[in-house]
């Protein structure tokens, strides 16, 4: 009898601890945002200015020889411009001048370079069914840029001194190193979630259905069986089902009307 009561006490103790822990995990998401205090951890990371970031971006674009390989058939160019414009016009107060570059490469890939430079491979355009899906991918990349994830990633991986050395000296080897990091390293799960959230908000404001992002992810999932190596966008953006789910469950505000992008997408793809 005594023994039992001792064990019961233990259960009460552990239960109390678990109740608080689990209680927080389950209940906190239900608290509306206005009541939540702002306790972000990494806000004031050591970082570099926008101008410096744009300088690095320029170095990298040069190194990557982006300008030269830009594909410019008129249909593609203007087609992309329609999509970009739809998104950019809804961006309030951005510090960046966004430049979109299209690279003739069958890889299904899109990358954010420092300085608001976003690179899209033609492989990705070919694989997209609708312009809305492309818009979703671009919005995601813009999200990375706006949240300064690229800069954070560079500084975390290479250190601030390295980055400063590149800005001030422009040494070819350092730039090469920097470029490698930009292309190859992966964003953290937190950063991906932030970019997803941003993209869905931006899509909503641009009157594009945010579920286009999920549609694109699922397309990647299906294609994965056949084009494993070429789906680099998948590799550099590791996603799991929760992200698809988040996109599908994103609740648009009242009065949202999705306006399809006025574009003959098939014609654009044909011109590639």
């Amino acid at each position: 009898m005594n023994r039992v009561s001792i064990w019961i006490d233990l259960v009460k103790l552990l239960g109390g601890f678990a109740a608080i822990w689990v209680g927080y995990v389950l209940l906190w998401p239900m608290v509306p945002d206005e009541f939540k205090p702002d306790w972000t951890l990494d806000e004031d990371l050591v970082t570099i200015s926008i101008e410096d970031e744009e300088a690095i971006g320029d170095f990298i674009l040069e190194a990557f020889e982006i300008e030269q390989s830009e594909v410019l058939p008129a249909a593609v160019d203007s087609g992309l411009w329609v999509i970009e414009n739809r998104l950019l016009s809804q961006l309030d107060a951005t510090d960046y001048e966004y430049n979109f570059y299209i690279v003739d490469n069958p890889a299904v890939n899109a990358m954010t370079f420092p300085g608001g430079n976003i690179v899209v491979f033609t492989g990705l355009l070919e694989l997209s069914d609708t312009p809305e899906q492309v818009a979703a991918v671009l919005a995601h990349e813009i999200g990375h840029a706006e949240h300064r994830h690229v800069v954070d990633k560079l500084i975390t991986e290479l250190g601030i001194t390295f980055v400063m050395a590149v800005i001030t000296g422009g040494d070819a080897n350092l730039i090469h190193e920097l470029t490698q990091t930009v292309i190859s390293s992966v964003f953290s799960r937190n950063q991906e979630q932030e970019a997803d959230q941003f993209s869905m908000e931006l899509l909503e404001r641009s009157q594009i259905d945010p579920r286009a992002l999920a549609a694109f992810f699922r397309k990647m999932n299906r294609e994965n069986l056949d084009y494993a190596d070429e789906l680099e966008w998948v590799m550099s953006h590791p996603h799991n089902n929760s992200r698809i789910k988040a996109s599908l469950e994103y609740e648009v505000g009242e009065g949202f009307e999705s306006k399809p992008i006025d574009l003959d997408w098939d014609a654009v793809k044909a011109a590639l």
Partner: protein
Amino acid sequence: MEEQKNPLIENVNSPYLPLPQPDEIPEREREDAMGAYLMMFAALASSLPLPIINLIAAVIYYYVNRRKSRFIHFHSLQSLLSQLPTTFMNWGLLYWFIMIWTKEAWTYDDYFKGYVIAVILANVLYIIFSLLAAVRARKGRMYYFLFFGKLSYDMVFSKSNTLVYKGEREAPAKNKPPF
């Protein structure tokens, strides 16, 4: 006729020895019992606020003082037993925090925040109850923590506890009543 139970008479059927009452406990014993609960602040005395210093202090205090009397043993044991999970919890927090800081894959998510809150709360409660127990011990009173109280009582006052205490007779009573 109803049997009047005189609580001061030892109940031979109980597996436990009777508790000493406050007026039977000399001041020195009370102070030593109180001291057990103060070992958690030992880390403050040293310059390293690592969670393990408290545990070491509690363990040393326990082994140095336990034979002095059952009352002291009880309080030292309760303090030590409750210090153990507190220390492990705090180490866990430290480890998790360092992992988040240094590894990309570990994120500052809700699970961590929940754990932080639970641990902080647990530490606060631990300190409050320990201080309460310290005050009670100094008055010669028993004080029982949730779970640890009953466990310590069971370990110290049980008749099968073979530890020899200063001032107690060495062998268990040989003469026992017939019924």
